[in-house]
């Protein structure tokens, strides 16, 4: 299968300034993203997983320039989105859409569904005004709502229905890539499944590409083709779904996977419990960012930053950022 590059993120950095002092000078930075690179191919679903504050959502927002990235490039179909003007960027927004986490906060309470979708089409000039109504009703049916609900206000819908409205809004401009920022995290498990299935159906129908941001590994396992694991603003491991779940290489990924609950009370769990908290992104640890919590950390980890690399034990485009992948796999590393 020839894979076509849709989105290529290179060395993306997002530093948020911390203002302080008498004149409101920048005293420090929150290094939310510290140089991440990855590629998304057309038609696939790439997930980004990690703990709170690891930079998952920031990645999505930086790609869309909802927050201007500090450094790096985001190439979408050959155009570097970080280099073009705000005006030009508006045209590209048609191709890149986002679905948000909170279905209650992501819709203006004063707009009916029809006016919300109409506005989206009006901004991007998708259809002539007289054809939009029919398209709105079609969109509502596509996302599993009824056409007669078009003139209702958001408060008349449930959370799951609102999330469908959010999906309809993203779809209304015929995007190529949709960033799902924790799109199902706020929903009940049964509704989550419905919305995930809807997303999959839409992907098949419209050939959509998803960048799926989530902390829920169960959801990620269900929907992804490839998975990116992030820790404190860096990518620690990137692999296709099967490789990552069956053959995780980075100690952090292993710990993360061991935390997935098993629906069997008698199952023996080899839970890897990490000590301590995620360090502050204002002053991240030198060397490998995970060394403060890694059971295998050595002096090398404390000083030298590991790069993403592939070893003979990995298949395909599997990469992990650890100095001791081979040693850990061979069992020659001593756990603290």
């Amino acid at each position, binding site marked *: 299968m020839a894979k076509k590059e849709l989105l290529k993120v290179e060395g993306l950095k997002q530093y948020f300034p911390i203002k302080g002092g008498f004149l*409101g000078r920048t005293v420090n930075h929150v290094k939310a993203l510290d140089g991440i690179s990855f590629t998304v191919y057309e038609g696939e679903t790439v997930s980004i997983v990690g703990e709170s504050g690891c930079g998952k959502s920031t990645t999505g*927002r930086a790609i*869309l320039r*909802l927050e201007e990235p500090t450094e790096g490039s985001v190439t979408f179909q050959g155009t570097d989105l970080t280099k073009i003007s705000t005006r030009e*960027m*508006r*045209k590209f*927004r*048609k191709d*890149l*859409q*986002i679905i*948000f*986490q*909170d279905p209650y*906060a*992501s*819709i*203006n*309470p*004063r707009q*009916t569904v029809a006016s919300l979708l109409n*506005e*989206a089409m009006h*901004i*991007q000039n998708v259809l002539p005004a007289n054809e939009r109504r029919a398209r709105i009703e079609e969109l509502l049916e596509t996302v599993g709502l*009824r*056409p*007669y609900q078009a003139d209702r*206000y*958001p*408060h*008349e819908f449930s959370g799951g229905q609102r999330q469908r409205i*959010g999906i309809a*809004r993203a779809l209304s*401009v015929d995007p190529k890539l949709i960033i799902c920022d924790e799109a199902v995290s706020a929903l009940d498990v049964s509704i989550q499944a419905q919305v995930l299935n809807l997303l999959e159906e839409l992907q098949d129908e419209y050939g959509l590409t998803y960048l799926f941001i989530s902390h829920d590994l169960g959801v990620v396992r269900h929907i992804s083709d490839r998975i990116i694991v992030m820790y404190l603003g860096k990518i620690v491991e990137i692999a296709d779904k099967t490789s990552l779940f069956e053959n995780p290489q980075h100690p952090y990924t292993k710990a993360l996977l061991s935390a997935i609950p098993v629906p069997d009370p008698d199952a023996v769990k080899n839970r890897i419990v990490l000590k301590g908290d995620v360090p502050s992104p204002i002053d991240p640890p030198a060397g490998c960012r995970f060394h403060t919590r890694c059971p295998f950390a050595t002096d090398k980890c404390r000083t030298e930053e590991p790069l993403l690399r592939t070893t003979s034990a990995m298949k395909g485009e599997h990469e992990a950022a650890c100095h001791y992948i081979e040693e850990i796999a061979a069992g020659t590393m001593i756990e603290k």
Partner: protein
Amino acid sequence: MSTQTEKSPVIGKKSSPRSEAFKTFMKRLLKNKAAVIGGLVILFIILVGIIGPFLSKTDPNAQDILNKLQPPSKDHWFGTDNFGRDIFTRIVFGTKLTLKVGFLSVLIGGVVGIVLGIVSGYYGGIIDTLIMRVMDVLLAFPGILLALAIVSVLGGSLTNVIIAVGIFSVPAFARIVRGSTLQVKKLEYIDAVRALGASDGRIIFKHILPNIMSPIIVQATMRIATAILTASGLAFLGLGAQPPEPEWGAMLSDGRAYMHNASHMVMFPGMMIVIVVLAFNIFGDGLRDALDPKMKQ
């Protein structure tokens, strides 16, 4: 699921969030007795201001020297002043002036303040710092002093008083609007329309402004009271409406010399200022309580 979906069911109620919110708002407002009274007084004053001058048969500036400084009587309900002018008629005609100053100056201050506040809150950065520091400078002056300075520069007339009072209302609006804008700006639906490629103007006017109207309405109501008080103060000092205009503050000033033997000359205009200012303040308080979603019913 197949046959019924096509037809829209008969929907009896049309419940937009606006009409829904308005209903709860009215319910809360009507529970507040003081606010209701304040609102009725305002309504009455507005009616007097609009239709009063048409009902009055007397000219507010008609002098009747023989009947000067008369105490209240059947012919002259509020008595007459030092030129024999009927104080009641003058107060009725003055109502219009007072309301004009109150509403127009708040309109000027509101529009300018809202624009500055939204720009400040939405764009942030240097623009924000610049605008807010200028507002701080304006706020550092006591209101009447600032208005006094502006009127001294522009010259004393009713129009200039409106402009001056308007300018000194700007920072209050700018601050409140900036705060609310910062709050609404962070909501996801603003990001959603930005991700759709909406222009800043569309985001500001269509998505931010309608959602920050409550604090603006409350602020405007309270500001009208302050504006009326300031305008009266300026007129009292001789810098506002020029004689013989029947401005309440000016009437108060005229009556000062006759306070001992004709106290009705200061009592009635003074009373009117107090009543109107109080009504707007109480009503504003009631509005704030009714519009605040955090207040328990």
